[in-house]
């Protein structure tokens, strides 16, 4: 029996990583499911270059970055012991950030239609379940103040970044839904509430698969 591929998407990556781990633990402890948690960029050689780009130690045009991200994704999917092989073995894959995040970030420069074409489902395994954690701006900025130690006015430049990114996500979600993709949205709340909502979605999915 093949596994399920779950993508957790959103702007706040620390929330995504935290929720991915919580969900993985829940499935292991309560459903005896073998789970692998992955992320993008991957831990492979191409992922290492993408991280240099994220840290601005390396520069690259957005079109090239989009193709590099695709290469990393395909490497993570297809390599020996990669995602596709794990799914075939019946494992569940939880990815903290996947196509939705990639499209939202990259479509600010590269055309969304082109991004979707090069990441089409023939080559890139699309997730079975996609959940978008929608973070309200105030809670995002409050967390930034707490983490950075800056005064609230000093993280105000993050406001523009956040607004732009959220707008990109919502536009991509709208386009993908029109194409028939199912995407659930969870409002960002305290971690336990989000986790409980996740459990509900996954339990429902498991029930439907068993029928």
């Amino acid at each position: 029996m093949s596994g399920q591929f779950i993508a957790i998407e959103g702007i706040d990556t620390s929330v995504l990583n935290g929720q991915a781990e919580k969900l993985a633990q829940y499935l292991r402890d309560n459903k005896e499911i073998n789970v692998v948690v992955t992320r993008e960029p991957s831990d492979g050689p191409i992922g290492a270059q993408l991280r240099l780009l994220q840290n601005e130690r390396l520069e690259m045009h957005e079109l090239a970055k989009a193709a590099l991200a695709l290469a990393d994704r395909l490497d993570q999917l297809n390599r020996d012991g990669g995602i596709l092989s794990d799914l075939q073995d019946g494992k569940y894959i939880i990815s903290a950030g996947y196509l939705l995040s990639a499209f939202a970030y990259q479509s600010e420069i590269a055309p969304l239609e082109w991004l979707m074409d090069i990441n089409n489902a023939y080559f890139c395994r699309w997730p079975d379940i996609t959940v978008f954690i929608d973070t309200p701006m105030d809670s995002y900025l409050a967390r930034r103040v707490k983490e950075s130690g800056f005064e609230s006015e000093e993280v105000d430049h993050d406001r523009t970044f956040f607004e732009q990114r959220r707008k990109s996500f919502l536009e991509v979600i709208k386009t993908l839904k029109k194409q028939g993709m199912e995407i659930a949205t969870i409002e960002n709340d305290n971690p336990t509430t989000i986790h409980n909502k996740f459990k509900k979605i996954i339990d429902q999915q498991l029930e439907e698969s068993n029928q």
Partner: protein
Amino acid sequence: MINNPGPGKLIALEGLDGAGTTTQMGRLAEYLYRYQNISAWTTREPSEGPVGAQIRAALTKRLSMKKNALVALFAADRLDHLYSKNGVIDRLKQGQWVIMDRYYLSSFAYQALDMNHDEKGWLYKLHDYCIQPDITFFIDVPVKVSLTRIALNRGFHFELFETEDQLQRVRDQYHRAISGLRKNGENIHIIPGTQPAKDVQKNLVKRLKIFLSPDFLNQKEEERIWKWNVLRNIRQRAEEEINLTYVGSKDIPPLRLLTKPGGHQGLYQLVFLDNLATKYHVMAYFMKGKKSISSISVRAAAAGHKIQPKLEKICQAEFKPRLFP
């Protein structure tokens, strides 16, 4: 593919390993500098950038990577090569010419091996934002020649694609890709590469001189010619069936022609080269204001040259004048 933003020109050199693309790149750059006062930037793919380094590691089997990931990596390197600061596009916009040792035709040959129709569609889609070269020279060598030269240069260290059977398939794939790209109007010349390097260079330079000639119609002006199916068919058949390369057209001014009753006659001269860069002209006469070609003839471009008989046959077959009004 997108058009060159110019004003610099982009020349691509393609061929199997051992075809001599690197040698000819240097020779062409020197010719352009010495005799045409044109400064050209020479560069290669995989590029010298960070992604190019990973590709080389994969090609030399130091890094294991599945095919699809490697295909996307080549595309990433190409886009980085084109769009990076001081990369290909920046230089073209500044007026510098760029000569590339390998470009996307190599991907359409090597990577398209064993790809089905959908996969090839994906491969081409990855290249949507690549600049179309102004001229591509494919240096064609038999596979045995390619393998001999590779062995001499690298001491039997073969890269990922270098068994005889695979290389023959790659060479066939090159020809298929060339045929497809020519149908989209790309300017691709097939040059025999088994001759000594200086003779291959002479062949390339001859074609480059024609390319640099100011008499030829530009791409926009050429659109008037291709509205006639008969001329499009002649070009396609000449390229596919008898391996001629279409290099451009001239619009012969009507003042030089006799005026016929009822109107002026116009003339387009389509110029073709064979693989030794011998020129042939297809002369297409039309009555100005009318929608059809009135006659077509084939001429050798220089005294003493033979008329290409097969080209003549194609023109006769494609041009069927109306015998009855």
